[in-house]
């Protein structure tokens, strides 16, 4: 559904943020795009939706070229930026003005999502808190039932209960014909939500793997002594000794720690690539 071929993009011609990036994203997955601040996560999302144009290479989303920003394409994709825009309208008025542009918008779902996210109709939207505004837009975006949903730092500005509700809602509404693409640097917020992890750093794709593939190839555990053999990608001192990420040669079952995974991959990209044969 999203195909990227040899994408090169940079805000300045001489300094490319992405160079020859290739990526295929299939429907039926919730992708987590992880990267440091300034790594180009939002930039990649903006290329998907057609807000930024590739300098070289091609992007195809739902069979469309995003750069053209055709209505038939924009109906199939919804982008929630880090900071959301809500005009001085009531919930009802906003829905009446914006929902008609999305043919699959579902009124009942919209009300249900608002309820689940604790957004209550109290006057104009711009008078709501930032977190409430964001939850309102998330509810609206989900009710639009677009095939692709792009979320840029969706949990920024949400309190802890709202983050939990957000995760529940996303996993609850997800269907196999959709792609949900979440970009964040708040890695813990994606725990138990995503089923594929994409890590970018310095304009390079370091990892694109499913959760099961990661669990299969890496082991996350606490040890008293750091092993001297095997490919140790990451170590962190902890109360019980050391938390490590190591190549899973013994086929052990372990729970993925996304923060440790991110550090492991960004600190040892070459070893990671060899493990994932990427």
């Amino acid at each position: 559904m999203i195909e990227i071929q040899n994408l090169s993009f940079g805000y300045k011609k001489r300094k490319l943020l992405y160079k020859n990036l290739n990526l295929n994203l299939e429907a039926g997955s919730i992708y987590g795009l992880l990267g440091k601040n300034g790594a180009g996560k939002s930039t990649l999302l903006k290329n998907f939706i057609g807000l930024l144009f590739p300098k070289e290479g091609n992007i195809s989303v739902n069979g469309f070229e995003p750069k053209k920003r055709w209505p038939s394409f924009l109906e199939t994709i919804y982008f929630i930026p880090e900071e959301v825009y809500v005009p001085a309208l009531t919930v009802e008025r906003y829905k009446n003005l914006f929902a008609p542009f999305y043919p699959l918008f579902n009124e009942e779902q919209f009300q249900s999502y608002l309820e689940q996210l604790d957004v209550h109709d109290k006057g104009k939207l711009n008078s709501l808190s930032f977190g409430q505004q964001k939850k309102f837009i998330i509810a609206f975006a989900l009710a639009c039932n677009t095939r692709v949903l792009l979320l840029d730092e969706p949990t920024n500005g949400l309190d802890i209960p709202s983050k939990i509700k957000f995760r529940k809602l996303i996993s609850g509404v997800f269907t196999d014909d959709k792609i949900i693409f979440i970009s964040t640097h708040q890695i813990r917020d994606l725990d138990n939500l995503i089923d594929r992890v994409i890590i970018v750093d310095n304009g390079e794709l370091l990892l694109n793997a499913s959760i099961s593939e990661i669990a299969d190839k890496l082991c996350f555990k606490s040890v008293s002594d750091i092993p001297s053999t095997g490919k140790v990608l990451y170590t962190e001192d902890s109360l019980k000794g050391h938390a490590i990420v190591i190549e899973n040669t013994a086929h052990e079952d372990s729970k993925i720690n996304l923060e440790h995974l991110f550090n492991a991959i960004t600190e040892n990209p070459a070893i990671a690539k060899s493990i994932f044969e990427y």
Partner: protein
Amino acid sequence: MNNTFNLTRFGKLLKKTLLERPMHTFGFTGLMLVISLLLYFVIKTFSHLGMAPHIGMAQTITFFGGLIGGSFFLASFVFGYFSSNASGSSFLTLPASTFEKWLCAILITGVLYPLIFLIFYRIMDSSFVAIYHNSLDTASPFYKEQYERVYNFDLNGIIARNIYVMFFIYTGAMLLGSLYFNKAAVIKVALVLCAIFIFTFGLNWLMAIGLFGSIEDAAPFNHVAIRAGKEIGSLELPSRVGKIFLYAIVFVFPTILWLLSFTRLREKEF
């Protein structure tokens, strides 16, 4: 699905644009009409204590300010989504074509607002002129002369036509400018226009001085008034060349500005 123009979708877009920020559209239009009314009244009343010829001044200034000022600011509102990442993204990713978004802006600034303003202006002007005519002493020996000194502003006259040209140029410049300058577009476009104006007139003046020495006046693409002793002679462009420049200023230049705003919107990255 037609990705260029769909009437139903365009209707939804127009409705959304007008009602999404009603203070920017209806509120501002209403404000401009009130300002025009006050401006007309103040100039008419205080410019020479209501003497007849100054109604003409009130008519011209109000027409100029109301039409050009109103559409200039309105043009900055219709594309004024780019001051924040969120609103800019929302505007560009709304499922409507670039052509529809552009046409919507054109319709509001180039058709709807001028139409509302012209209707209001005609009613306001006719009322003030009627009040003036009714205030005259019919027994006065100067009645006929006083009566005929004031008449409705000619919306097809030379002054009005010059103002229409300026309206198309300034509104087109603002539409284009608001797609280049994401923040404080009105101020930046106004500064650019001032800079172009000063540069064009300044350069023209310097060239005229360089060529003719002592000059009285120099209007770009039009004429140079040369001083020779106590006499002043006007050197005008040859009729054919003058017409070319006139057509360029009246038709080509505004058309380029309005069409460029479409191209810029299509190519806009945000």
